[in-house]
């Protein structure tokens, strides 16, 4: 065969590849000295891939805005992607190491309970200020330099329960359909607690694997218990939509509700979500920048979080340097928690010492292919 011809070519190609890889690592480290790199996580997993786009779009708006005004202390903001693969902590660590060592990121926004918990010590050691969009309560416990931008499970459940009590008084029982991970189990347990506090009883719960093809079995069982409401607790992505469709098809007419996982265009596009369904997520008030409002309508509720991450980082760096302090993760987070009550162009937050954050949440329904704001609860109300 043509092995004789291929052999030297193949070898040469592979040798070139190897050299190239080595060189790339070396050359890549020569970074423009006046850049200010910010690490933004990316994911190829089914669930997170959807809202990572939203996060990026929001961040992009802020980066362009700030750079147009001259950057931060004369330095242009530069986004650095941190690939966490399939929410894989080991993959995340490799990317994070590169972002820290080579790209020298000044701050990070990321998600995934496992990803954040396992890499918490690395973040602390590298002295990087990091923000998380993960709802697991364990995340900020694993790192001293990580601050929540997202509401945690307890809060979500509390808000849902309050809304049901106020607007759907006929609901006396509920069921939970949760992803069979620690996060989902936590969500189920917290909701049982919070709903119980307002007199709504948990009558059934079923777990499902991540990104299931089919929820009929689980929903059939839940419906046997005839709940007045069903709380959907997946990790994110298409599972909420699947849950809503399947429930309605099986003849369920009761209330469906979920947390921020429902805040994606998957759901906006779902006609079936337009009745007897609400979710708790993040609102973009009328006072927010136009660009953010438009992007949120297109990409979903995680868009403002990306914007705010960039905005907060810029603000903290400016404030820290104004104080004459060196810019380090510790300094930035300390400043954040010292200032505590911060109004960004979008939201008002209360950044607590332990890493948790009181942030406004809003209740949405779906109408005409878009989310419709029903009610906002401010950070102060939820503190």
């Amino acid at each position: 065969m043509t092995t004789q011809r291929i052999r030297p070519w193949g070898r040469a190609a592979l040798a070139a590849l190897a050299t190239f890889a080595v060189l790339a690592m070396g050359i890549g480290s020569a970074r423009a000295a006046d850049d200010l790199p910010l690490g933004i996580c990316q994911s190829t997993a089914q669930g997170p891939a959807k809202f990572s786009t939203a996060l990026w779009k929001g961040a992009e708006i802020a980066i362009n805005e700030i750079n147009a005004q001259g950057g931060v202390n004369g330095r242009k903001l530069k986004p650095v992607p941190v690939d966490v693969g399939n929410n894989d902590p080991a993959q995340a660590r490799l990317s994070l190491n590169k972002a820290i060592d080579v790209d020298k990121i000044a701050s990070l926004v990321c998600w995934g309970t496992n990803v954040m918990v396992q890499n918490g010590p690395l973040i602390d050691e590298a002295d990087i200020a990091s923000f998380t969009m993960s709802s697991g309560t364990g995340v900020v416990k694993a790192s001293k330099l990580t601050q929540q931008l997202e509401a945690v499970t307890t809060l979500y459940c509390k808000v849902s329960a309050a809304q049901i009590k106020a607007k759907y008084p006929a609901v006396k029982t509920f069921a939970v359909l949760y992803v069979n991970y620690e996060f989902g189990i936590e969500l189920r347990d917290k909701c049982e607690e919070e709903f119980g506090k307002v007199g709504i009883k948990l009558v059934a719960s079923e777990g499902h694997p991540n990104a299931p093809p089919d929820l009929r079995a689980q929903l059939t069982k839940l419906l046997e218990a005839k709940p007045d409401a069903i709380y959907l607790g997946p990790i994110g992505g298409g599972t909420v939509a699947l849950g809503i469709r399947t429930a309605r098809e099986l003849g369920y007419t009761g209330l469906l509700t979920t947390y921020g996982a429902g805040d994606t265009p998957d759901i906006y596009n779902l006609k079936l979500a337009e009745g007897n369904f609400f979710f708790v997520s993040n609102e973009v008030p009328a006072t927010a920048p136009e660009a953010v409002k438009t992007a949120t309508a297109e990409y979903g509720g995680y868009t403002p979080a990306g914007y705010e991450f960039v905005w907060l980082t810029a603000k903290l760096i400016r404030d820290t340097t104004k104080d004459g302090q060196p810019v380090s993760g510790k300094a930035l987070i300390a400043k954040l928690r010292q200032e505590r009550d911060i109004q960004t162009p979008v939201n008002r937050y209360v950044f607590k010492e332990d890493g948790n954050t009181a942030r406004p949440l809003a209740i949405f329904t779906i109408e005409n292919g878009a989310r419709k704001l029903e009610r906002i609860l401010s950070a102060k109300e939820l503190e």
Partner: protein
Amino acid sequence: MLYVVDVLTLTAIMAVAVHGYMLIKGLAGLLHLGHAVFYGLGAYASAILTTKVLPPGSFPLSVAAGALAASAGALLIGWPALKARGRYFMIVTFSMQLIFITLVINLSFTGGPDGLSSIPRLSFGPWQPGKRWMLDLGLVTLTFAQVKLLVMTGFTALSFWFCSRIVDSPYGRLIRAVREDEQVAEAYGRDATRAKLSILLIGAGITGAAGSLFAHHFNYVGPSQFELELTMLLLAMLILGGQTSLLGATIGTGLMVGLLEGLRFVLDNWLAVPFEMTAPLRQAAYSVILILILAVRARGLIPERLKRHGRPAPALPPRPVAAEPIPSSGTVTELGEVVLTCSNLQKHFGGLTAVAGAGFSLRRGRIVAIIGSNGAGKTTIFNILSGFERADLGEAHMGRQPILGKTPAEIARLGIARTFQDVRIWNRLTVIENILAARPHQPGEHPAHLFLSPGRVARAEADNIAAAWTLLERFGLADKANDLGNDLSYAQRKMLALGRITAFGPAAMLLDEPTSGVDPKRLDVFLDHIRTFARTDDRAVCLIEHNMTVVKELADWVLFMDEGKVMTSGTPHEVLGDHSLMRRYLGHQKAATA
């Protein structure tokens, strides 16, 4: 740089896993699509033990436990899979890969879908360094991460050494023989299933150790880390470097990691790829490049390294070929000891009767020829006697031992060996290795002896090699000793087959058409060898032959078979002189010349 150190550490760990894969897939030829399962078993075993059971400082014990856990898993998977003659092995391992994650997620002691955290770091008894631990060597100070890299690289070197020992040993040679042609290995007394299972356990153990190293390096294990994606990555690393080469496997690991990390740089830092596309594009680019690599060079960079055996200093002058006067063909006056008897053999394939009551005996020093047209049942009888087919009825004895119903390896060990109609030498073993692999009683074929009594193994191997050279001289193949079996001409292969069966040294030799397709000019050499087997080596020889000249020259006794039965038997003169019989068998033209 922490990043580079981290990447290199992971590379070192994965190289160990790929070494294990090389043993299973490259050396043994087992198509194994569940390698990440072994890695995961080792990682989880270490994680569970060190977080729940073992005291701090027990890193070495944990690695050993990881290796054991993976080997145990291999035994569970391998035993049923290999027993079903290996074809299902790929399916079973692939299914295990798919199922492993589901099992791990649903069991609580594995930490479920969230995995196990806080796995202790490297430690050794009282040395339990914290993350900030430094090693001050005077000239340089090494961080913990750098020391860890050195330790992991040390493990890579250790596994390289260990696997090299295996590859170069008689055991490695046996595994390769089984890879090339498992049935022939059995025909020479080796238990192929046990060999494959043993290499599977060893390869799995090494991979499990790598998994342990990973657990202690990363301090977290979770189910998403051991999925099909990882098996495919390990397979790609193995293939890229050259699956039959240990060095190739190691280099392939480095290259693949280099590719993946290089892609990261290309997409993140160089090309103006839109931000949200970098992660999926990296995965896509990796997949496409892999396809291209497979299209261009699926054989990998480095080919199998062949061991060259040097000729030892001769203690005795080389033995001449067929020096003694060959007694003329015809009857041997003294009847040798009966070695093999069989009677009333019957074999049906569906509606077809292959053998319908055949029987004969073989004596030392005598050559019996079986002739008959195709489909007369001759090779089937050989298959029955050597254990490759099961007789429906009948009896056969080797000495006093009944042989029907035994496995081919068991029968061979009783002293019967056979050659095959289609020759079937071990193609990717060298000529001398073909001889060496057939010689019986090699302590080096047991992995335990390899490491526990290396001296004995080395001595036996030296004797083996000396004897092999003698045989090669005898059969005229000495100048081809280090050539691949594949590179021989047809006649040379047939000669090698004779040499190989001689190396095995059976009391009874069943030769299936040993001279078919051989150039008539070279026939004499073959005849001399076969005659020597009987007269000089005092073996019982049975031939299947179609060449009447050969039969006349060699045979002391001829059996004529037709339609599965022995129609007639007698001296060559009697049988071949029976013109009506010959006409029936050969057709008109040959009967005239018989």
